[in-house]
């Protein structure tokens, strides 16, 4: 039924070790990236201006993109907005938003149809002081930690057995670490939006793990039959969410709505990692538990 169906994988061909090796290797690489980042930059992830402090201005200007840096005394990073000609998102490490705003208004040409008595070329701006950013960082760290611990405890309460609960916790951990490493590689800094995405990922990614554990542990039937039943549902779920998030990431990027773009992209990557973690790592742990672990 359907135009696509979830393929049935012949898990008997692979040993538990083989199955677990791939996701564990990917997790190790991801952790190595974070470690390397920490050694070289002092933080495991690149921090966005909301955490590190800095200023972001969105400007509507007739000035060419190439000439924008000349308008400012500060180093500037420029991102153009696809759906809106002449709109640019500028980021600075300085927190003196008033000086930057003045420089923008003085040195950037306003659009012809712009309203003269409006506030000039700057249509939106945000500025975060370093201390405010540091405090936000701490809050974000607490938030992710509390969420993760809470989820882990909940998983243990749900299944009340060590190995299957641990499988959920390990794969959720990997689901968070892989997208963070991905962010480092492609150069997306950690922002409020990406933290939200990571937390949502904890909630989302555990769904398919719970489904798999439930199907194998609490339901009758042969191991592989149960696995396939859970996979059909779980993969559909994850792929649907991935589709939604990818589309959201692309459209929000085109429209220049950074928050939604960040959330979409991180969830897409995290859910892809979750497919691997659930049906390779979690599954191998469960199979070991079911066939070897219980009898001990």
């Amino acid at each position, binding site marked *: 039924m359907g135009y696509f169906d979830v393929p049935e994988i012949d898990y008997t061909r692979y040993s538990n070790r083989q199955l677990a090796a791939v996701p564990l290797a990917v997790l190790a690489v991801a952790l190595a990236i974070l470690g390397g980042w920490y050694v070289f930059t002092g933080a495991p992830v690149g921090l966005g201006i909301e955490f590190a402090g800095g200023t972001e201005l969105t400007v509507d200007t007739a000035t060419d993109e190439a000439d924008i840096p000349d308008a400012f005394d500060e180093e500037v990073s420029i991102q153009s907005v696809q759906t809106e000609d002449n709109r640019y998102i500028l980021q600075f490490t300085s927190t003196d938003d008033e000086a930057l705003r003045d420089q923008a208004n003085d040195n950037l040409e306003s659009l012809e149809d712009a309203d003269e008595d409006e506030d000039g070329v700057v249509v939106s701006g945000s500025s975060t002081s370093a201390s405010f950013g540091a405090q936000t960082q701490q809050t974000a760290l607490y938030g992710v930690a509390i969420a993760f611990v809470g989820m882990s405890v909940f998983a243990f309460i749900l299944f009340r057995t060590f190995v299957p609960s641990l499988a959920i916790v390990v794969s959720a951990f990997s689901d968070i670490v892989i997208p963070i490493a991905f962010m480092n590689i492609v150069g997306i800094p950690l922002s409020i939006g990406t933290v939200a995405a990571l*937390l949502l990922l904890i909630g989302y990614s555990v769904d398919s793990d719970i489904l798999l554990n439930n199907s194998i542990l609490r339901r009758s039937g042969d191991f592989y039959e149960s696995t396939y039943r859970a996979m059909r549902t779980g993969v559909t779920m994850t792929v649907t969410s991935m589709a*939604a998030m990818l589309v959201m990431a692309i459209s929000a990027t085109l429209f220049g709505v950074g928050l939604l773009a960040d959330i979409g992209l991180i969830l897409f990557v995290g859910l892809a990692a979750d497919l691997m973690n659930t049906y390779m790592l979690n599954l191998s742990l469960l199979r070991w538990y079911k066939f070897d672990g219980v009898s001990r």
Partner: protein
Amino acid sequence: MGLRDFVKAYWRIILLVVFVGVALVALFIPGGIFADDSIAGDGTAAAQNGTVENGTENGTGTAATVETDQGWTNLVYGLSLDGGTRVSAPVVGMTAEGLEIDPSRETEVTRTLRDELDLDRENVLLRQDAQSRTYTAEVFSENVSQAEFAGALQAAGVDATEDDVRPGVTQATRDEMIRTIESKINEAGLSGGRVSQADIGGEYYIVTEVPDWTPQQLRDQLSDRGIVEVVAHYPGENGTQVNETVLEQGDFGRVSPPEYNSERDSYEVPVTVVGGGQENGGPATEFQQRMNDLGFTTEGVGQCNYGNPNAEGESYCLLTVVNGEVVDSHSMGIDLANSMRAEQWDEDPRFTMGAQTQQEAQSLSINLRAGSLTAPLDFENDQSFTIQPALADQFKVYSLLIGIISVIAVSGVVYLRYADGRVAAPMIITALAEVVILLGFAAAIRMPLGLPEVAGFIAVVGTGVDDLIIIADEVMSEGDVNSRRVFESRFRKAFWVIGAAAGTTIIALSPLAVLNLGDLQGFAIITILGVLIGVLITRPAYGDILRYLLTDR
């Protein structure tokens, strides 16, 4: 089938329809479910932290100032979708609590602290706790260290060490500041302003949102402590001039709007002084007495030549001082002098305060009405966000488009997977019903919607469809559903997974709903509410719809 059986069989669907209906009313009927704005709450960062938003004395709380005219829906938009400026700044100051001070020494201790730390009157504050009878001392200055504060307390004979001093100010001070800022922005004619406090990483920030102004304009307005005094500037001994504060903030009663005085080509703010005509002499009587004693009403009439070196030792001026700076100098007029000399002025104590420009007069008037800020804000360590209404409007459209595109993407995948309209169509409709109910809820409680909330809505559609897929697969597994009993049993099994999944999502997002992380509180609240509505209302209803479509009744 009788009505009772019908209700019994389809109560979940009926419940869904009722909820959607109520939500639509809340969304589209002008006035919504609660026509009276007074019950409106505020779902922003404020709500969690015990703010005093609605506790303003003059009824200018958030509820009353939220704009209710929002076009064709009852939705209230947050800053990122409505335009405006927000500045979050910590308060300058430190506090020592639980101090044992004899109430009779209160003034003496305050004076010692002021002298020891070399601070102005407004930067030292002693409060007595009504219950424990102990005192709390606060100092509002960046130039005083905790050790210096403790030392000054000891010098004043108070038993306190450096460990008793903590950075930050008291809740009472923050509450006063929030009230003052609220009335300041209301007095400045900005409706729709919101003021609250937020605990970010253990430090309290005062968060001010206004629909207009650039961040700098807002900072200027907020960095104005608004401390207004009238200072008598009169000749002392040996050709010098002496300054003496004769009227303070608390001495002013009714404040009238600024007026233009064409004779002097300057602006005036007419005020009344409180405590006139009392038996034992209120501020007005004291002021009158002091003016007579200092000679303002006799040789000083019309003799103001402020700032002129040649007039040194001869000038009689009444200075309007705001935040320690002289904004205007005035001489005593003959009419005022006469009525003061006759000791009749205090029966109707009217007085005008001068200002050079209309803007100064305006801000003087605002400061007089709103009162002064108890402590200054630290704008070195602030965070600001601003967005023009035009861009915010574009974001509204974009959000809607992104939402619609995401729903289409989800629908597409679901249809491709099942290729059965009977399964897929109700899935999409149910997920949309969830969004409608949630929107209705947001409109009913007047929760301001910004971009983070939009992300929450999209997250809700995502989790919602996930759960519907679980239900559909479970119900249709192991062959056709041919009896109600089989259906119910499978549905219950599916529901265990859904409940567990909902639990994890709620646990994962609950820290965000409580912590102040950017604007994410709204995102977390919307997502958690959506998951709850989904588990309790829409997902069971989807099960009923599927049963109706799939079983041979």
